[in-house]
């Protein structure tokens, strides 16, 4: 045990002091924050700042449409009203669009007794955000106008057509809690991504470290005093501790950031992510199990390779479960209790990611969590049995990469 701890400590210190650890600790949250900032910025600014014209026969209708559009502060639109509009006005507007004086115009026709018609004419198509805003505004205005035509007072019209937004509630243990579907999704996505990233990153890290020891030919020196199983155990513990350290740094930095005034301003109510103690505990459990699974797998495989390039050929073993889990992300979040969601969250290579996605939308029954943890523990044991034997033989073998039949033969004489 003393040897295991010494090796773990050496591995831990070497990695924590290394440049890669410092770079990833700072860079990864920075990249994350940058991506989120870009996404939020792009979302707020898409279709914003446009200069358009609204053309209708009825000045009142055009005015209401304009007021509707200006009410949306995010859009920051400049809206001209052309009313009453005729064919000459239309030709003039087309010329203006063509001459890039305005971005486009909304042409509304309300023939008496016929169906109303609205056209949006611009140089580009595919601006869904602007189209959505315009559709909302025209419909809202038409409803108001029709109600007014039927003799309903302006005040009543306002009350009748007032728009409401859905409030999503989540029922947990028989009690209602306010939940924001989108925020839940983002929280799940972030935690699952972080989990997958760290599990696979540190799993591969173990593989790389084994290759490095193999190429630096340190094994023969070490094995003259230390058992191979102690070396493997020390390495897994040491690198696992590095992973936990990094997660703890991110966690602490995140908590610290969330308590600052800046965060309050930025997240301003609409972006509250609540993470409970159970979430954190399960995150740690799934990190450790997922890490154990991938790292033992890669330690065994690395022992059969001579170079990192050869090890890269095994990377799909980690990438495919990750893709699979992320490909199913919307399905799992919207159908957390379907047979497929349950099945994939029990499947060990995908469990850490998919179980977290399910937890976010609805907390799964306890037995399913226990079952997935149990299945993972069993598969860790099986992979460890296989890997430690391959490892024992492989680390002293140089030359070409071992084939599967060779590895199976190694199982016998180790």
């Amino acid at each position, binding site marked *: 045990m003393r*040897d295991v701890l*010494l*090796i773990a400590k*050496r591995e831990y210190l*070497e990695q924590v002091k*290394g440049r890669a650890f410092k770079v990833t600790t700072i860079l990864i949250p920075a990249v994350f924050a940058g991506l989120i900032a870009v996404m939020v910025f792009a979302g707020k600014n898409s279709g914003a700042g446009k200069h358009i014209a609204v053309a209708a026969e009825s000045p009142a209708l055009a005015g209401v449409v304009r007021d509707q559009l200006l009410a949306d502060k995010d859009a920051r639109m400049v809206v001209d009203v052309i009313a009453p509009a005729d064919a000459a006005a239309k030709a003039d507007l087309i010329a203006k669009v063509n001459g890039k004086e305005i971005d486009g115009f909304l042409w509304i026709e309300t023939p008496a007794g016929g169906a109303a018609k609205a056209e949006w004419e611009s140089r580009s198509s595919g601006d869904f955000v602007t189209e959505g805003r315009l559709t909302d505004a025209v419909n809202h205005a038409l409803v108001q106008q029709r109600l007014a035509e039927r003799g309903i007072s302006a005040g009543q019209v306002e009350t009748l057509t007032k728009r409401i937004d859905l409030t999503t509630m989540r029922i947990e243990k028989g009690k209602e809690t306010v939940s924001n579907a989108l925020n839940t999704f983002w929280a799940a996505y972030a935690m699952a991504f972080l989990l997958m990233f760290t599990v696979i990153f540190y799993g591969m890290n173990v593989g790389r470290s084994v290759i*490095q*020891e193999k190429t*630096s*030919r*340190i*094994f*023969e*020196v*070490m*094995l*003259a*005093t*230390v*058992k191979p199983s102690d070396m493997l155990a020390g390495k897994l513990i040491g690198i696992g501790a590095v992973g936990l350290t990094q997660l703890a740094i991110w966690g602490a930095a995140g908590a610290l950031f969330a308590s600052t005034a800046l965060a309050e301003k930025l997240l301003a109510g609409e972006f509250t992510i609540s993470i409970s103690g159970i979430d954190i505990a399960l995150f740690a459990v799934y990190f450790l199990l997922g890490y154990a699974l991938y790292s033992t797998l890669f330690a065994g495989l690395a022992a059969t390779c001579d170079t990192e390039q050869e090890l890269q050929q095994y990377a799909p073993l980690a990438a495919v479960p990750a893709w699979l889990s992320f490909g199913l992300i919307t399905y799992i979040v919207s159908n957390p209790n379907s047979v497929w969601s349950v099945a994939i969250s029990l499947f060990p290579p995908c469990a850490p990611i998919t179980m977290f996605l399910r937890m976010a939308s609805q907390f799964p029954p306890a037995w399913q969590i226990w079952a997935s943890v149990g299945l993972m523990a069993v598969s860790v044991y099986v992979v460890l049995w296989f890997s430690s034997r391959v490892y024992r033989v492989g680390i*002293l073998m140089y030359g070409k990469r071992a084939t599967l039949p060779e590895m199976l*033969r190694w199982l016998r004489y180790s």
Partner: protein
Amino acid sequence: MAAVVELDCVSKVYEQKIAVKDLSLRIEAGTMFGLLGPNGAGKTSSIRMMVGITMPDSGTVSLLGKPFARESLRRVGYLPEERGLYKKMKVMEQLVFMGQLRGLDPATAGKRAHAWCERLQILEAVDKKTEELSKGMQQKIQFISTLLHEPELIIMDEPFSGLDPVNATLLQDTLIDLKNQGRAILFSTHRMDQVEKLCDAICLVNRGRAVLAGGMREVKSRYERNHVQMSFEGDNSFLQHPAIAEYKDYAGLVEIRLKPHADAQDLLREASRKATVWKFEVMEPSLEEIFIQTVGEKIDA
């Protein structure tokens, strides 16, 4: 006296290849033992079984007078041929780590490492990362890490390869000191001149079997003094003398191998009649010749 290490009829087979077959040898305290043999003869395989990296298929290994046990490895120092160090670690950290793995506490390991670095003249390197050092320096660090825990059995696979003559001599002298302190030292090498100079006993392995073993003097005495080295000036027709099996003429210096039981004195008389002889020395064959002869015969067989 109990042997420090003893192999008794040890065999090891990898898949189809026989690595070691019925090998027996013993090394006593205070001796230097040379394990010789061509590439792939089974030297490294034998050593790996002594230090528990692999287990023999049959036969027994005894370490320090007891059947092999992992605890005994704390008293063994092993420098493999394929050398490895943690490249990113600083020299002193590395030495202390290695010392700790072999049971030392950090303070003792540090103190001894410092003393050794001083002795081997690499004190200025202790705070550098291993990857920044020259190959020769790295080799010295490995050498130190092998000796830090004052092992009773020191096993070195090709310890002098890649060292310049000054450093090779430095390490050689260190090994002789250790031997005189009563440690048992086993080393394998291809350099027969070093073996001849340093070793008290040898074992020559070929194709996994011991083909020649025993004390250095005893092994050599099994071979006839049938080698002549001479230098002369003048007529060289005496080289056709019937006692000569073969000769090599290196411009004035001739190396002669005599036929079995030939009379060297008669050759000397013949030579002095025809030429001026400056030097005429009858020698036992060098270890190198014994090596080539023994291994070569086996390959022919």
